[in-house]
């Protein structure tokens, strides 16, 4: 709704064309243990998916090949872990058309069979352990390089100190400390 006519400053008003309600969908990935937030913009007034909903649909459609228990599977990369509540502005309301509900059912509340979920979890554990292994190896290499570098610096310091000591003339009668 538009504000009153006599406000001093120019006013922004919410969209009157489409639905601007949003909710956050939490997604879990097969390749890491992070839970990412993704904004779901729902559908617009004509029932067409908003661009945010399109992106979400696309993400949920991503597949990855994985070998679990010696068998090849093609598994979804992302699964929905949590569906947030719709956030609405004071002037907005949720559309309640059948198409909207059907779409929500299809894309958001997609059920996964238990067997697939078990395979998915195993594949996730594999991907994560591979990734962690590789990072540990990289860190180990870096630490080795670092300690080698430090050793080099220390040996240079020792050499320069010993050179200084050997070339410094001793003062007669001075304290040789």
């Amino acid at each position, binding site marked *: 709704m538009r504000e009153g006519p006599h406000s001093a400053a120019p006013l922004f008003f919410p969209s009157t064309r489409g639905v601007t309600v949003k909710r956050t969908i939490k997604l879990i990935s097969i390749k890491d243990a*992070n839970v990412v937030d993704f904004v779901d913009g729902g559908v617009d007034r004509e029932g067409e998916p908003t661009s945010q909903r399109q992106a979400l649909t696309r993400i949920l459609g991503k597949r990855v090949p994985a070998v679990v228990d010696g068998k090849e599977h093609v598994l979804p990369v992302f699964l929905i872990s949590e569906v947030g509540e719709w956030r609405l502005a004071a002037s907005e309301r949720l559309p309640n058309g059948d198409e909207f509900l059907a779409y929500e059912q299809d894309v958001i509340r997609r059920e996964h069979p238990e067997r697939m979920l078990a395979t998915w979890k195993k594949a996730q554990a594999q991907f994560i352990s591979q990734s962690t292994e590789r*990072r540990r190896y990289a860190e180990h290499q870096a630490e080795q390089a670092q300690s080698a570098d430090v050793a080099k610096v220390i040996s240079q310091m020792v050499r320069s100190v010993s050179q200084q000591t050997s070339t410094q003339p001793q003062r007669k009668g001075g304290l040789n400390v």
Partner: protein
Amino acid sequence: MAQTTSTTVANWLLTEVMSQIALDPLRGKYVLLPFLNMADISGRATKNRKIRKKTAIAAAVDDSEGGDFAASPGAVALGVASNITITPTTKVQGVELTTDAIELALPGVPRSQVVAAIQSGNPAALPLVRDAMTEILEAHYLRAETDALALFSGLSESASSSGSNPTAAPLSFAVLLDAMLKLLDNNPASEDMVFVLDEVGIADLRALAAGGSGAALSSIFTGNGAADLAFFNHRPDVSRNGFRGSFAGIPIYAGNKAVMATANTGAADRVGALIVAGRGETGAPGSVRGFAEMTERYEPSLGFQYDLSTDSLLAVGRWCWAVGEHTDEHGVKIIYDKT
């Protein structure tokens, strides 16, 4: 006399314009938008943009005399692996300017003339409408940047963090190296890559380079100046494109955290990424294919209307576009502590 009046009005206007510039709202940074490919489907008989992703064919085989190559090993069909569909949708934003506000912006002009100019679409009212439209265009850019940054969350590959998952750790060089390895391993169409992080991520890297206490890789930055320390040096970023230097020759950009996605419990982590930079129109000669594109169905349409009942000017800008991902292989997300 007439001359004096016009000079006075012009001076007032100039002062008004200068104060407006000084008090303009702080703009968001558009860091990722320049790295998106562009496409335009305006005027076409479809509302969708479809891109066919083809499967790669195998390497050539030795030809044997008298042998039928097509039978064995067999010619490979140039199949369609999948379709990408990007459907631009209309986004809208508007500003309602009260006649009082318009009158204030045009000192010396009688109110009746202001209203008459707006109602009749007189060009005299245009400077103020232009200001309104600038704001509206900024609103669209901000949304496009937000949508593009949100795509990071949906990338399959993730650079491995050393934090106790699911909460990621502060950003480290090891994570950047892991991201590079994973992205280059995908054989991307172009190796023109950029890191898109936020200021906290940049600060993490600077702290590692400066302090180095217990920081893997930090020692390479203190040896004979051989390593790339560009990201450590702040530069006056007049263009405000977020460029902060480079790591291993790859430019690092800092995005606006307000429009970047979050991850993990309590939204404690930030989602950045290493992506292949797109340049130019998708598929056009000389262009570089990046990780995503912005597809436009119709150009911004801007209009305004005087509302007699509210005595205000409603300026509305519509633009039909969408931001969509090209290939999952062209990006690796980087998740780290956001504080």
